[in-house]
């Protein structure tokens, strides 16, 4: 009778232990899962913001009005035209 009781309580304790371990494990998994979702969501949002910012900067750089402005800023009219012909004494090719 005593032996049977020991086996009964032993099994019962083992079951409770397994249950406790499983519960702790599942909960930790759950917390990790929630953290992972939050982390990925955050990352996704940051990447979207970054992408938007890059495309915005790109659009600004290649804007036709800006390109024209740069073109005009860099334009230096030729004030003193030097014609070079084959007879020029300083022609390097000579």
């Amino acid at each position, binding site marked *: 009778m005593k032996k049977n009781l020991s086996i009964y309580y032993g099994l019962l304790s083992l079951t409770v232990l397994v249950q406790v371990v499983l519960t702790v494990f599942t909960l930790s998994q759950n*917390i990790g899962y*929630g*953290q992972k*979702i*939050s982390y990925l*969501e955050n990352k996704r949002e940051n990447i979207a913001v970054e992408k*938007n910012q890059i495309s*915005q900067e790109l*659009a600004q750089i290649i804007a*036709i009005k800006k390109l024209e402005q740069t073109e005009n800023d860099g334009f230096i009219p030729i004030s003193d035209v030097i014609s070079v012909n084959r007879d020029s004494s300083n022609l390097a090719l000579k």
Partner: protein
Amino acid sequence: MNQSRKNIFFLVFYLFLLLIVVRLFYWQIYKSQELREASESQTLRQLKNQGLRGQIFTSDGYLLVGNKRVYDLKLDKKNFQGDQGYLAYKLSEIALQDNWQYQEADPFDNKLKEELRKNIEQEIITKFSSKGNWPKLLDNLSENSKKKVEALNDKYLFFDENYERFYPEASMAAHLTGFVGRDENANEIGRYGIEGALEDELKARSENHLLKMDALGFILAGQKYESKNLNGRDITLTIRRDIQNLIEKKLEQGIEKYQADRGEIIVMDSKTGKILALAAWPSYKQWQYFKYDGEVLKNPSLTRLYEPGSTFKTLTIAAGIDTGVINKETVCTKCSGPRQIAGYSIKTWNDQYNPNISMIAGYAKSDNTAMMFISDLLGTDRLVSYLKKFEIGNRINIDLQDDTRTPFPEKIGPVETATISFGQGISTNSLELVRAINTIANRGKILEPIIVDKVFDQQKQEEITTQIKEGPQVISEETAKTVTEMMIEAALHGEAQWIASDKYTVAAKTGTSQIPDPNGGYKENETIASFVGFAPASNPTFTMLVKLENPKSSPWAAETAAPLWYSVADKLMILLNINPDK
């Protein structure tokens, strides 16, 4: 004895059990709602997802209207213990860089700069004393300004992120894009142009999720959470950036050169009806819409009605030829002097008359009596029926706000029939006229102008392309061909012959129309000069209208709108890669 002890024990035991059951009932049934609420208030969090408003692109893939991140600056007033005056001064210096008045001012005008800074400083000081623990000190700060504020290292300052419309191409195509304003509840809403017409497509969606979270703000498992793309639909217009830029510059130069009050240029693909560019002047900056008069914000190509004048003769000619009442060599037997109709004397534009003039010459010379001759032969009903087939008075069916029907004369007597034949006494808008004239370029079939090329649905990741909207055959192909020949003749030997191109054929017509006076009759010294046509006439690629209101250098279209038309057309030939046909 033993038995009674046992009974007492069990009685106590069962009473104890009953107590537990009652207590459980109390907590789990009676108090369940209260407990659940208490628990949820600790774990349930509302997560708001907000998408971005759809972007607008040109057909060649350039961003025309996008979204820019901006920041609102808030102060933790309750805990802030620093010097408010100093903080207001530093913030005003930073915010000044984002102020539009400062950006537009003369960079050397230090007095104005100081005045604007002081205004901002004063506004900030006022906000310090406002109600609430988190007053918003500044709004819509740029990324740069945010960094400068962060450099102040003030732990009581916080930022709220926000988005506003961004225009990398500055005010390009303002009348097409429209702008984003605010409704009566201060919510963002698109106004005018594409922003107004396609508000439902463009607007950002938002979603609220109620989720259980732990103390650190992480989502607890077992809940379905799906983050969706909530951005509005992206719109790609039919306009080309280079062509739009070209015509905007040309129009501005033309307005200055010919000293006009207003102007418009529309370029349409003759074979598809796609608007390649549309410019109107005066224009506005979309991000400063509040500075402009309401009239400037509207697209004049839809809202500004005018009497088209001689450009309208093309439709009368087309109706006459299509019904067979005339051909291009028909001789006008009523062109030797002014026409007397119902007590009115109707003259030609220069009061010169050409007896027995042919229709082709009459059209080239823009002879009003020749047009009245055609309307006599046609009769009112047939003329009106053709104008309706050309969709004069009908809305454009374009995705732009303010696209409505234009008034078509209700009672048309003999005088109205006569004046309508040469474009007076009937009003239209520029897009209607371009649509009608393009019918001739498109071999007699009407094409509805299109401004939206495609729409990209972010949720479904699906692209919806706009189909070409070809309407019925208005005039026969043969008639269209004959009218084209007459338009070529008008361009070569009409009033604008001095500017005609020697590289490509043009089928076009000038129009110098009078402006109705609100007090009756027409204004004495003001005209609307227009030139409409297509090129190359042998294989039309583009149809273009140039319209100048009240040009003061000359009232005549041949000396104002026509040279501007040709100067744009010369560039279009290159941009559209068209081979010269002469």
